[in-house]
């Protein structure tokens, strides 16, 4: 059975995908995140609220997501926090 991802892991995966692709359309990001549409919506709202990602429009008025500096910082902090969680067995 495939192990369910932790909340923190899901956030990391979404941000990582954005970091690798630099900018992504919402639908592509939904597929890449491997989440249900409802869960994707919840996570995206949270990430936008925390200013980890931002939604922008290109010249053709198409929406796409971008990783912010705060999101970049979080990815660096994630490693340290994940290490803490693993060390304490939390």
């Amino acid at each position, binding site marked *: 059975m495939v192990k369910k991802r*932790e909340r923190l892991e899901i956030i990391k995966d979404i941000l990582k995908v954005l970091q690798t692709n630099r900018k992504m359309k919402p639908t592509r990001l939904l597929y890449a995140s491997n989440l249900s549409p409802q869960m994707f919506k919840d996570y995206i709202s949270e990430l936008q609220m925390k200013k980890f990602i931002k939604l922008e429009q290109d010249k053709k008025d198409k929406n796409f997501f971008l990783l912010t500096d705060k999101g970049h*910082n979080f990815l*660096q902090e994630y490693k*340290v*926090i994940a290490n803490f*969680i693993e*060390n304490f*067995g939390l």
Partner: protein
Amino acid sequence: MDIYSFAIQNKEFLKIIYGLIIWLICVVIVFKTDKLFEISLHQGIKYLRNAFFFYGFAFFLRYIVGSYYFVDSIPGIYYSLINIIFAFFLAMAGFFLVYSLIWKKIEPYDDRALSSFLNARIMIFYFLSLIIAIMDYLWKTHNFLFISQIVIFFIATIISFSNFSHKARKQKFPKFYFIAMLVSLVIWIVNALASIYFNWDPGFVMNVYFLNVIVFLIFLYGVKSVTKKLNAVKN
């Protein structure tokens, strides 16, 4: 005068120092883990933080507010109340500590946004801790607290040993964490022995205090080393 005699003669003063050290360690851990929780919103971190919040409160109340120097000015009923609250918070802290290790297996995925202080599962711990504190008070003993904590730390030791054996090659801290849990278990057993067989022999108790400070320092070391890395990442 050797250190041992000095410690016994000044045991009431040293108790305050002991309570102050543990309380300070707990305050630092609570603030540092709060920062980690703020970033991650990880429930396990929250439960760990709650454990140290309760430990800090318990030690502050028992060893500082309820110290020998203040007790004379406090009516007996308040002193009894301090002991009941101390037992309650200590039991709760133990429950939170072990729960921080097993919460993933208990809490369903869809149900994790609940308050870490006031959810249905934690209510069971409040209820159990209250029963333990009241029974200890009614029977004029500490045995119910000792038994509960020995069981809790036995479970925590097994879980942390399992974590340590899986990660020992990669990291060194799980080894310390396992040792901290094991020493905590030993401390509770020794506490029970000191109460039942040694009538709270001051020399015996001083050694327990010393071991307890070491355990809390191990926890602090684990938290500090991570937050230091976090600061390095930010800078």
